[in-house]
């Protein structure tokens, strides 16, 4: 997993696919007939949403495993997932907002999907603030795991409640994000390529951050041992 060769390959293929997706969006895919050119944001918005939600799911899974097995590895994974998830979630909200402005005439509406995303964003923002405000002790790792689990548990209830709260889905969302929205096969291809590109980008970020956090955890353990040995070496015999 921490093999640099794999990491570099992943980095290169991510770059290649990102460029390919960029090309496809701007030169290959036909813009949507009704929404015009702004609809092209869709091809990055959806992959961003997917990786953001996948990250948050991973935070919860890592949290469960951390509480169960107590291995620092799971905490490092959860932290890395929360951080990358937050990056992608923020971008998704920004991209969605920029898309909404020309199409709906507003940056933000309290539509159910937007509301849910925003609540998720707040939850994991809280998670990251907690981690940032505390040292990396096993105790804080447990706090993170608990919040990750609790937040994920909350997601279904959030979805149900905001749906009931705001049932007005703008029609564009339903038709264009539904499966039947992409009439042209080129649209499907573009979406698939950008989905793959973002999944790889996510995996790459995750791997880099995870590796860094692993290294840091190992180093702090090592620092303790070196300190012990240093004190011991200077013992009067």
């Amino acid at each position, binding site marked *: 997993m921490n093999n640099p060769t794999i990491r570099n390959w992943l980095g290169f293929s991510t770059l290649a696919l990102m460029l390919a997706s960029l090309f496809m969006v701007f030169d290959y895919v036909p813009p949507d007939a009704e929404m015009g050119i702004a609809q092209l944001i869709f091809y990055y918005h959806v992959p961003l949403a997917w990786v953001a939600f996948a990250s948050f799911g991973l935070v919860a899974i890592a949290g469960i495993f951390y509480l169960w097995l107590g291995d620092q590895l799971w905490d490092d994974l959860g932290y890395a997932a929360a951080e990358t998830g937050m990056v992608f979630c923020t971008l998704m909200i920004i991209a969605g907002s920029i898309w909404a402005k020309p199409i709906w005439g507003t940056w933000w509406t309290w539509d159910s999907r937007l509301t849910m995303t925003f609540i998720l964003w707040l939850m994991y923002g809280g998670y990251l603030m907690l981690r940032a405000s*505390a040292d990396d002790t*096993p*105790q*804080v790792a447990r706090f993170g795991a608990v*919040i990750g689990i*609790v937040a994920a548990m909350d997601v279904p*209830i959030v979805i*149900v*409640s905001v749906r009931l709260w705001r049932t007005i889905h703008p029609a564009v969302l339903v038709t264009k994000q539904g499966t039947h929205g992409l009439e042209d096969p080129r649209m499907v291809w573009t979406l698939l390529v950008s989905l793959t590109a973002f999944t790889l980008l996510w995996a790459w970020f995750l791997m880099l951050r995870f590796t860094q956090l692993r290294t840091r955890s190992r180093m702090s353990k090592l620092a303790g041992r070196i300190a012990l040995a240093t004190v011991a070496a200077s013992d009067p015999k």
Partner: protein
Amino acid sequence: MRKDLRLELRSGESTLALLALSMLVLVVLVFALGAARVRSVDAAAGALWVAMVFAGMLGANRALLAERDNGAIRGLLLSPLDPSTLYAAKLCAALIFMAVAEVGAVILMVLFFNLDFDASMARLAPILVLGAIGFSALATLLSAITGRTRGGDMLLPILAVPIFVPALIAGVKASAAALAGAPFESMGDWLKIMIAFDVLFVTAGYLLFEHVVGGE
């Protein structure tokens, strides 16, 4: 093991402060909303829940403070008391705090928003109870976390409020319906959401509490 609850309550010096706070929140909202909207049940229900969330937050922080002063939480952890029992006791204490604050807030709401004491109050009660259970369950779990981190007092609302949103939405909607005189059946979905939230978070708190109070 509920005896510790009684003692904990006696240590809670100022339920009065909670009442004062909910009153202030209501006053602020009355001014913020303007006289025109002060008769609307929607505004009243919203104000009531804002007051409740604030009071609940303050209550959770205060309950925590009692334990933090002399590190009494460690004394509890060292005792043969089971962490889940500790959670249950602290949940009950938080619940009682919130219930007192709620009764006060409802009375003030009726006065400030020119409502009437009638049957709608009876329908409001179970909604508020459900909301208080959910919020206490969540705040008790989270305050055990934030109480042991630097700047934790600030972190508690940041963590708790987003998670509480579904119950908040459901609670406000159901309360507004209750105040408008709607029958219970019409708010079935909202009540179900609140019940689901309560069940989920009481269980989660019960199971996860031992992980947040454990040693460093």
